[in-house]
C-alpha cells in the first residue's frame, strides 16, 4: 500500500547531521517488544507480511509520530487480538522465472490498499535485472492469507536519473529487490542497451 511507511525519495523528513541517535533501543520495553515479535513470528502466530501490514495500517500521522518499537507494539497488539493461533493451509503456486540477468524490465504500477513490497518510487520505472534469487513467497498474497505464491525475486538496478530525473548524481545507482509479479518486460523497440531517462523525453 502507498502509505506513510513508503518513504523512498520523499522530501521533507529533515537531515542527518551530527547528534544523530546511535542507540538501538532507549528503554527496556523496546527490547521486550523486539523479542515478543520474533518469538510470535517463529511460532507462526502471524507471518512477516501480516506483521508488516499491521505496521502499515497505523494511521499516517500516528505512524510518523511514533518511535520504531512503538509501531511494533501497536502492530503486535492488533495481531494478538486478531490471531487465532491456528495454521491455515493456503493453496500453493510456483512460478517459473521469466527474467534473467541483463533483462530490461519495467516495474508495474500497483496501487493497492493491501500489503505490497513494491515501493512507489520505482513504480513505472525501467531498470535492469542484475540477479535472480529465491523463490520467496509473494508478500501481497501472504499478508492476507490468500495463497502461497513462490516466485523468483530479482535485484533490479536503476540509474539515479531514471528515478529522480536530472537532479540525480550521474554515478548514483539504486537497486531494489522485486518479486516477479511486480515486473513486466520492457519493450525495447529493437534496442538492447540499457534504457536512459533522457530517452523518454
Amino acid at each position, binding site marked *: 500500500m502507498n502509505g506513510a*511507511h*513508503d*518513504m*523512498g*525519495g*520523499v*522530501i521533507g*523528513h*529533515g537531515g*542527518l*547531521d551530527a547528534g*544523530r*541517535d*546511535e*542507540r*538501538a*533501543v532507549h*528503554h527496556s*520495553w523496546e*527490547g*521486550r*517488544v*523486539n*523479542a*515478543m515479535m*520474533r*518469538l*510470535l513470528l*517463529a*511460532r507462526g*502466530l502471524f507471518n*512477516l507480511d501480516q506483521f*508488516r501490514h499491521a*505496521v502499515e495500517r497505523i494511521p499516517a500521522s500516528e505512524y*510518523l509520530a511514533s518511535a*520504531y518499537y512503538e509501531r511494533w*507494539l501497536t502492530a*503486535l*497488539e492488533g495481531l*494478538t487480538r486478531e490471531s487465532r*493461533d491456528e495454521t491455515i493451509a493456503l493453496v500453493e503456486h510456483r512460478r517459473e522465472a521469466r527474467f534473467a540477468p541483463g533483462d530490461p524490465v519495467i516495474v508495474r504500477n500497483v496501487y493497492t490498499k493491501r500489503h505490497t*513490497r513494491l*515501493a512507489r*518510487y520505482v513504480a513505472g520505472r525501467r531498470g535492469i535485472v542484475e540477479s535472480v*534469487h*529465491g523463490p*520467496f513467497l509473494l508478500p501481497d498474497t501472504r499478508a492476507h492469507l490468500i495463497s502461497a505464491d513462490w516466485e523468483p*525475486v530479482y535485484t533490479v538496478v536503476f540509474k539515479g536519473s531514471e*528515478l*529522480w530525473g536530472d537532479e540525480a*548524481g550521474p*554515478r*548514483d*545507482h*539504486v*537497486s*531494489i*529487490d*522485486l*518479486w516477479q509479479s511486480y515486473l513486466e518486460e520492457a519493450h525495447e523497440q529493437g534496442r538492447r542497451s540499457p534504457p536512459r531517462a533522457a530517452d523518454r523525453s
Partner: protein
Amino acid sequence: MSKDDAHHPEPPTDLEARALALESLLVERGLLTTAAVDSVVAKFEQDIGPTLGARAVAHAWVSPDYKRRLLSDAKSALTEIGITEHQAEELIVVENTSSVHNVIVCTLCSCYPWMVLGLPPTWYKSAPYRSRAVLEPRTVLREMGLELPQQIDVRVWDSSADIRYMVLPMRPSGTENWTEDELAAVVTRDCMIGVAVPRVPASVG
C-alpha cells in the same frame, strides 16, 4: 519525589505499561513465556552485534579464499567461523572497491542484517535516512561524515524483500601487518552499513 523515594521504581510510562500488558496477555494465552522473552532480550544484548560482522570482514581481508566464499555464499561463510544465528532471510555481502561504494537502506520498514550487526541504530530506522538514502546518497553520507570522491560510483541497496545486505568495506592501507583482531577493531557497524569507511588511528597508522 523526595530522595527517600529514590529506590522505588518510577511508575511505568504508557508504552511500558502497554508492553507489559501485551506480554502478560501473551503469556496467559500460552503463546510465549517470560523466560523465552528474557532469553531473546539477552541474546540481542550480549551475543548478536556488529562484532560478528567485523570478524567476518577481518577474516575476508586476510584470506582471499574466505573473501570469495563470503561474497558468493555469505551464510555458509559465516557458519564456517561460528556465526550461526540465521533465520529465514538470505544474506548477501557486497564489496566496496576503488570504483564502487555500497550503502544499505530499507525504505519500506527497516530491514537490517541483524544476524551480523544486531539491532539497527535509531538513525537507520529514521524517516530522514529511509527517505533520502535512495534519493541523494552522497549528501546523506556527507552529513554523516563521509565525503566520497566524485569519480566513484554509489550503489544504494534497498532491501525490500527477504534478502539482507552487509557491506564488505575496503581494507585500509597501513594495516598490512595487523592481526585479525586488530583489523576487526576498525570495522565499525557504520562501515558495514556503508555510511562510513574503516579508519586507522593516526597514532598507529
